């Protein structure tokens, strides 16, 4: 098992390196930071533009390979992911946003998976009964509701609640506002902020797990080995819980793994609605600002997330499925 993981890890590091390098070349080819300066009024002299771009190592007059090796050297030797066109180091900017994104996304992801998979199992066992139909209807509703609409509805609703009660039970912007040193109050404050965006993210996120897990379990529920288990003397529910569920979880693990990266950078709309300074918004900003180094840095972080998720999925799948473990 350890050997298996190490082999995987080596594969992933190589893949990651190739992917990040490709992103660097792509970003350098399509983004034009010079235009940021050219559009300024009054336009700065060319020599000064070149100097600024050279400082950030994003001057299109330097050959891209030279820029690439400088950039790579910076990362390898001093963990320096370069500067934005405004001469801001991108690594600390990303790091600070990772923390808010993690706070925002971690809870909602875990909740989405737990709620989605449980609902999938619950409805699969009750296929075509009213519970199944009702929950499917609800999930389909969330599936077609845009995040912005859902976010705004919730904001309006909670403002109404806040106004009605006259106290601020829920905060609709940011992640923190308490400045004191009391841990209990800090946690309460955090919860007051986090609950609304979490509701939005869970509502959007769980649907996928619900609908796919339901299908996977329905597929395995009628498998011959479930019938064998019943013939041994297990009741239908025991047979499903013990024999069908485990096999049906194998494709879900892969599903989860590959959604992790998009969870971090894909919460743009929720971040915007609730005014949270997360990675998603930063990613959009870097692209708008022709920030080559910033965009590549975020892409690298997503790549790490994806591969971490893939590794996690591989380990989970191997744990669930001995056929992978032994081969």
């Amino acid at each position, binding site marked *: 098992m350890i050997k298996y993981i190490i*082999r995987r890890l080596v*594969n992933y590091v*190589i893949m990651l390196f190739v992917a990040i390098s490709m992103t660097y070349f792509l970003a350098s080819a399509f983004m034009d930071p010079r235009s940021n300066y050219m559009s300024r009024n009054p336009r700065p002299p060319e020599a000064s533009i070149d100097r600024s771009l050279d400082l950030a190592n994003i001057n299109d007059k330097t050959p891209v390979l030279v820029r690439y090796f400088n950039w790579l050297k910076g990362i390898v030797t001093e963990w320096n992911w370069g500067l934005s066109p405004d001469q801001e180091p991108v690594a600390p900017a990303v790091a600070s946003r990772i923390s808010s994104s993690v706070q925002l996304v971690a809870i909602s992801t875990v909740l989405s998976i737990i709620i989605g998979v449980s609902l999938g199992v619950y409805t699969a066992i009750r296929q075509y009964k009213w519970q199944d139909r009702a929950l499917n209807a609800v999930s389909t509703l969330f599936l077609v509701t845009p995040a912005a609409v859902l976010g705004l509805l919730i904001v309006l609703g909670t403002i109404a609640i806040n106004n009605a009660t006259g106290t601020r039970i829920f905060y609709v912007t940011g992640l923190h506002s308490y400045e004191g040193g009391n841990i209990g109050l800090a946690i309460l404050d955090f919860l007051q902020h986090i609950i609304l965006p979490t509701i939005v993210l869970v509502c959007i996120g769980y649907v996928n797990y619900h609908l796919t897990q339901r299908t996977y379990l329905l597929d395995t529920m009628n*498998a*011959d*080995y*479930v*019938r*064998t*288990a*019943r*013939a*041994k*003397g*297990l*009741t*239908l529910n*025991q047979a499903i819980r*013990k*024999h069908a569920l*485990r*096999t049906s979880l194998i494709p879900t693990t892969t599903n989860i793994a590959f959604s992790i990266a998009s969870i971090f950078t894909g919460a743009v709309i929720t971040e915007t609605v609730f005014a949270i300074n997360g990675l998603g918004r930063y990613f959009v900003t870097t692209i708008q600002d022709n920030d080559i180094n910033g965009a590549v840095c975020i892409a690298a972080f997503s790549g790490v997330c994806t591969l971490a998720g893939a590794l996690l999925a591989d380990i989970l799948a191997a744990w*669930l*499925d*001995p*056929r992978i473990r*032994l081969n």
Partner: protein
Amino acid sequence: MTEPMNTVAAAPANGEQPVLEVRDLRVNFASEAGTVRAVRGVNFDLYRGKTLGIVGESGSGKSVTSMAIMGLLDKNAHVEGSIKFRGDELLTKNDKEMSVLRGDRIAMVFQDPLSALTPVFSIGEQLKEALVIHNPKMTEEQIVSRSIELLKLVGIPNAEERLKSYPHQFSGGMRQRVVIAMAIANNPDIIICDEPTTALDVTIQAQVLEVLQRAQQETGAAVIFITHDLGVIAGIADDIIVMYAGRPVEKADVDTVFHKPVMPYTMGLLGAVPRPDREKSSRLVPIPGAPMNLVNMPKGCPFAPRCPLATDICRQGEPDLLPVEGREGQLAACHRVKEIVDQNLTFSDIYTVGESVKSKFDGIPREQRQTVLDVKHLKKTFPLTAGGFLRRKIGEVHAVDDVTLDVREGETVALVGESGSGKSTTLLEIMEFRQPESGEISVLGKPIAKRMSREDKRELHSNVQYIFQDPMSSLDPRLPIYDILAEPLKVQGLSKQEINDRIRDLMALVELNPDQVDRFPTQFSGGQRQRIAIARALAVNPKLVLLDEPVSALDVSIQAGVINLLEDLQNKLGVAYLFVAHNLSVIRHISNRIAVMYLGRIVELGSNHDVFEEPLHPYTKALLSAVPVPDPQIERTRQRIVLEGELPSPSESFSGCPFAGRCPMFSTLTKDQQARCLGESPELVAKGGAADHMAACHFA
């Protein structure tokens, strides 16, 4: 309806109580087309130590009956009647109450061993579950020792270590042994076997049947054995119920059913099966028509539309299953039973045996016929790879290893062997129409070269055609029959008028109504679809047709019709067949020459008569002895050569004879002779009387 009194077929004289009483069992399913009446009145009693065989074609309700006893039917099944286990009514029990009996008193062995075990749990865990669910107080040691005992009983070597293995590490036959071990774990009173050997090779089937019989002796259980294979049932059952369209139509002890059947359907079923133990004497007799649609059943006997004896009374009302006068313990559901018994009507009186067409090449000896296909030293290997990014080659699978054979005009050459023997790969390699990895393939004297002109390729395609196993998936469901048949003709550049004429001829040739060319494949039954596939293959007047298991997906009564058609077409058109099948009875009936394959090599090659009557190679002998014969007397007396072990992995390489490890003759040889078997690979050379009878064995 039938009175319970009538149903006791073979009650033991000592007045023993039956373990299971089934009375007027009816099962309906709601479907979109209407109510499917899958089982319509089944009655029987089951006694300890006895085996009841239930025979029937697909859709006859035999499996549904067994699932109803187990209480494992889908929720949309509506079950009526009564099933009593030791006097205890089962149909009123809910899932929880039934689960107390299931696996403990009533156990079941299913058809497909590959999917019957949960892939993510080890064999030990699954066996443990079967024990613990009914004996929660068992200690860990008791569980392990009982599991080992069970695995040993069903003949799994290294039982202790194998407990930790997972299902995918076992072969199909071994998995079926595990399923049997789980079934007998709690010494059940009843074991229901639903087609337990259908998915297995004959030699493995013989092993598994032996294990089942041993398991029955150990537990003293009553067995319900469900199968469509009359050969298997002849060897294992005491009493037999023949089912048709959801009802038993005949019931008696095994000898009576096989030797003195009275219901025309039973007779037809027995007549439609080719016999592996007899030289072909006449054509097979297919039962005309197709099985009944269970949704809209007309009144009257469901077999009447297919029965040569049917009269008006048969179409008026459905006959009850009643005792046959003058026959002890035999019951039949037929209005004309009295005439059949009184006049002693047999199969040949009722069904008309057709005349076969005389072959174009009748009387021309084989040597003087043109060679259609010549395969010399054909080899095909698949690489075994390992590693992630860079796939390293770590070995080779020798799927086809030095195969040499020829097919002449108007003859049928059959490739036989167990799964993994390379027979299908050989066929696929010929179909590829490209220069093989090693060796040579020639069609009509022209070798297949690496580069061929477009013209040569087209000619090759018009000379060689193929027919696949599953007629459902080999015909495009979205093309009407006309387009399916026109496709190969268009490639050959025929005009529209020529194509129309040819398609009309083709439809008539395969005995289908030419007006139905605008229908889609799904509107035809399995047998008709296979006829369409045959018509498509024959459209371009090929000289050679490659057939891969062409009848194995069909029911016996339909299969006979397709086999007859293939024979007639060969005789009329002089086309040669290269035929791959695992069913040796079909091979015996249809082929002229037989090549027996083992691990990618031909171990014996000879005429039909020589191979079946005077087999030389010990593997051929074992294979033939494992084939069940649909005759209970022969089955009881014949000696089986049961091969030990399993087919070795084809990735192994052998310096000597690949069969030596399983060879029953090997242990009888002297040390020197054994050394020769292990060290020197035997060549395929002429042995025995005939010059064209060859075997690859040093000591045959």
